[in-house]
């Protein structure tokens, strides 16, 4: 469906357009005046009467007249005549027709079903071949006045195929009457096209002027087609070229906007996957290769909570994701504390060993989940308030769950920032990571703070897992697909800064989406990885890292 969006020009033109639009609105509210409507109805009745009873020439004139009047019943009447479903009733002026696809007889003028159809004696009206030939175009034209907006919309496409002054007139008349905005836009576009193809130079220029605000690739190709034609004056061609160029610019802008948005959407997923790492890697300096499995645990917790809610309180099933959030935080956080206590704490100061040990943990967790839940994907359903989508300018679709995840990721980041900056625990956490000895001397239980910090990072990952369960397959391998990306975000953004994680994930998300059209999703990713490797040549400590003494540790 092409949609014509007018981009108002600034200044006086804008004001004029606004006034015009207001005027149209006012006239639409008043019009059509009752008198005119009645006159049309009378004219239509007369024309139908002529169709039923007149000779060949009278009938041809009546067809023209009906097209001209543009009554909502016109399409039904003309096609009934065409397909021999129109009939006169003996002993009256009444004309009836059998609706398309069968059904009870109805009145040709009003469309109301006829009472007692069996009692009537009807005679089918036969139109001659000449009249029928005329009817064929007429039927498609009067569709523009049909009652069904869908039919009207379809007819605009048909009408454009035979551009002429007459069709332009027809469209103008239809435009006057149209009240559905979507159809109105379609008619406007069709009219412009017809004028562009069939009108004289002046009309063409006016049409180009109107079309130059379009955002439709179809209009652009129409304008470009005009350039190839010899019978078009030079100034029209120039105008067409300029209009096409301005549409092109607008399309590019929209395209960029869309990609930026998709990139931000991808970035928010990366953010959720990586934000827990900002704590475990960024703050504690622990490379936790089981981080991905914390995401996975969060996703499986969502699945279990959903099953429990379905079994216990099916009425609340739409809210199970909300119940899953604290549950996932607790499950993954508890697992994090457990890991810190049993493994990680024995390896502080030996980062490479930590890396290997946590990889071992990730294998254990993966295989554990596989043993308990089985290898196939688990179904986690989206609640109704996260399904659906909105359409953006230029036809891009934005699903609610993506939007939700974006908001959610930012919220998680904000909460985390508050915890670190504003709570006692956050203060102690920063104290321990900056100067362990001094913190301990001041009575901060550094061992417990370490465990809780690791738990916080893991719990946040679990919460991220809840969100990821809404957009990706819940399987034992879920964590593996995010782990490389998550670390790239942290390395790129800079270790130890929440801003770094935010910036890193958004930049990488957007970069990915801009590379995709040129390189494809896979190679785009490869290029991003190569760019990161080159980037850290320039800023080895990431985009948002501190320089100098504070950065060297």
């Amino acid at each position: 469906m092409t949609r014509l969006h007018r981009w108002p020009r600034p200044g006086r033109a804008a004001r004029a357009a606004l006034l015009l639009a207001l005027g149209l609105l006012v006239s639409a509210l008043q019009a059509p005046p009752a008198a005119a409507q009645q006159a049309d109805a009378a004219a239509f009745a007369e024309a139908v009467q002529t169709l039923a009873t007149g000779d060949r020439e009278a009938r041809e004139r009546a067809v023209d007249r009906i097209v001209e009047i543009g009554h909502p019943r016109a399409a039904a009447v003309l096609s009934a005549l065409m397909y021999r479903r129109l009939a006169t009733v003996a002993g009256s002026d009444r004309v009836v027709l059998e609706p398309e696809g069968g059904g009870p007889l109805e009145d040709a003028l009003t469309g109301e079903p006829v009472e007692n159809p069996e009692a009537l004696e009807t005679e089918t009206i036969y139109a001659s071949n000449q009249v029928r030939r005329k009817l064929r175009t007429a039927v498609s034209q009067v569709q523009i006045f049909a009652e069904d907006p869908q039919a009207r919309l379809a007819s605009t496409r048909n009408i454009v195929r035979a551009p002429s002054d007459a069709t332009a007139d027809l469209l103008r008349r239809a435009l006057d009457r149209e009240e559905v905005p979507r159809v109105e836009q379609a008619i406007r576009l069709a009219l412009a096209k017809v004028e562009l193809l069939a009108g004289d130079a002046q009309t063409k220029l006016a049409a180009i002027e109107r079309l130059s605000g379009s955002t439709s690739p179809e209009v652009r190709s129409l304008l470009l087609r005009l350039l190839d034609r010899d019978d078009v004056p030079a100034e029209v061609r120039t105008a067409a070229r300029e209009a096409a160029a301005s549409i092109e610019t607008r399309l590019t802008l929209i395209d960029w906007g869309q990609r930026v948005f998709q990139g931000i959407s991808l970035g928010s997923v990366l953010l959720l996957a990586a934000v827990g790492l900002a704590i475990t890697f960024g703050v504690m300096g622990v490379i936790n290769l089981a981080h991905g499995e914390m995401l996975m645990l969060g996703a499986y917790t969502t699945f279990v909570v959903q099953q429990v809610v379905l079994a216990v309180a099916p009425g609340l099933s739409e809210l199970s994701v909300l119940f899953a959030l604290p549950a996932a935080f607790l499950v993954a956080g508890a697992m994090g504390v457990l890991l810190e206590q049993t493994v990680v704490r024995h390896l502080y100061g030996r980062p490479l060993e930590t890396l290997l040990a946590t990889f071992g943990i990730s294998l254990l967790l993966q295989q554990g989940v596989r043993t308990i839940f089985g290898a196939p994907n688990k179904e986690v359903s989206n609640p109704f308030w996260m399904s659906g989508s909105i359409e953006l300018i230029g036809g891009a679709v934005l699903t609610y769950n993506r939007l939700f995840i974006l908001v959610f990721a930012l919220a998680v980041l904000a909460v985390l920032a508050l915890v670190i900056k504003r709570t006692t625990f956050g203060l102690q956490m920063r104290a321990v990571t900056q100067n362990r000895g001094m913190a301990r001397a001041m009575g901060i239980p550094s061992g417990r703070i370490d465990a809780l910090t690791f738990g916080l990072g893991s719990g946040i990952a679990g919460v991220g897992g809840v969100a990821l369960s809404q957009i990706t397959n819940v399987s034992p391998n879920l964590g593996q697909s995010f782990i490389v990306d998550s670390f790239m975000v942290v390395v790129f953004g800079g270790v130890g800064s929440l801003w770094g994680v935010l910036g890193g994930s958004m930049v990488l998300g957007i970069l990915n989406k801009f590379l995709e059209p040129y390189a494809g999703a896979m190679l785009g990713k490869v290029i991003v990885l190569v760019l990161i490797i080159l980037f850290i040549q320039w800023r080895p400590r990431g985009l948002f890292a501190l320089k100098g003494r504070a950065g060297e540790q």
Partner: protein
Amino acid sequence: MASQPAPARAGTGVLGWRPGAADLALIALLLIALVGMPVLNALPPDSGLKLPDYMIGVLGKFFCFAMLALAHGLVWGYAGPLSLGHGAFFGLGGYCMGMYLARQKAISAGNELPDFMVFLNWESLPWWWTGTHLAPVALLLIVAVPGALALLFGYFTFRSRISGVYFSIISQAMVFALMLAFSRSELGFGGKTGLTNFSTILGFSVSDQGTRIGVYVATVLALAGSYLLCRWIVRSKLGQVLVAIREAEDRVRFLGYPADRVKLFVFVLSAMIAGLGGALYVPQAGIINPSEFEPAQSIEVAAWVAVGGRGTLFGPILGALGVNAAKSWLTGFAPELWLFVLGGLFIAVTLFLPKGLAGLWPQVRAAVAKRRGGTDG
């Protein structure tokens, strides 16, 4: 007085072993591998000691892994950087061999293009396949391609002083990128299926048991050669510089040694050894595909080295053979248990056995010596 070689702390670095102990063990191992196994394989089928034909291939693959582990251990155990991307070099070497074998197959079938390109309706051979049907070119590529990647990667990372976990993560990203890239069939390496269904190598049929033993023997010899090369390096003063870099890289620079270049040298050498191992792996496995580039595979290599013992050359070989033997034994009857075992192994080794199995031996020896000293005195 001054001439005595400095004895060292147990299990670390160049000096971890009293000269000869590891060498003797390795010589014994390689001799058994080189002579013993083919002889056992040649025994008549009804004799109780007959080594089944397929076992030659299995052992051969283990020795390829041992080369990969040796290469990895040279970098991690001596110079310090923990690569989580050594599978990249192994896989690239494998692909170079795979290209040669695929071309041989095509030529013997009278085609110019390998089968998978025919399926894809490709018109002509991509330029990067040029010359791959020639054995010398293939042999060159097997070490040159992994070496070139290592040179590029190492140059950029070492130059900007990327070390520690950063190096590990970035190297993991490198192998991950390769996995993504090689999964694309447009790249001309058979996509996800990879290269397989080989027919001949150097004119001999790959399915022939004689050929298999030949490749097997070549693998054992390549391992022995790589070991000797690495041994020469770590025993030279350069080996001391490597250990010094591992311990305090900055200090080494202030002594005037080109630390970046030294690291780059062993990294590239290591990649070449890994590439050779990968190349020998392919005819014995019968296939090469992007799964060799899976990050988890590369991390597993680190586990072999850790289990065997870092800072030694014998340890990684031992670790690769041991872990892979355990893997193929266990996956034989309880495949779901293997990941638990491997995961546990990672944790146990880092927590309880930081010097690996090779580190165990000097400890035991010291304990025995102590007890004996106690009883004597």
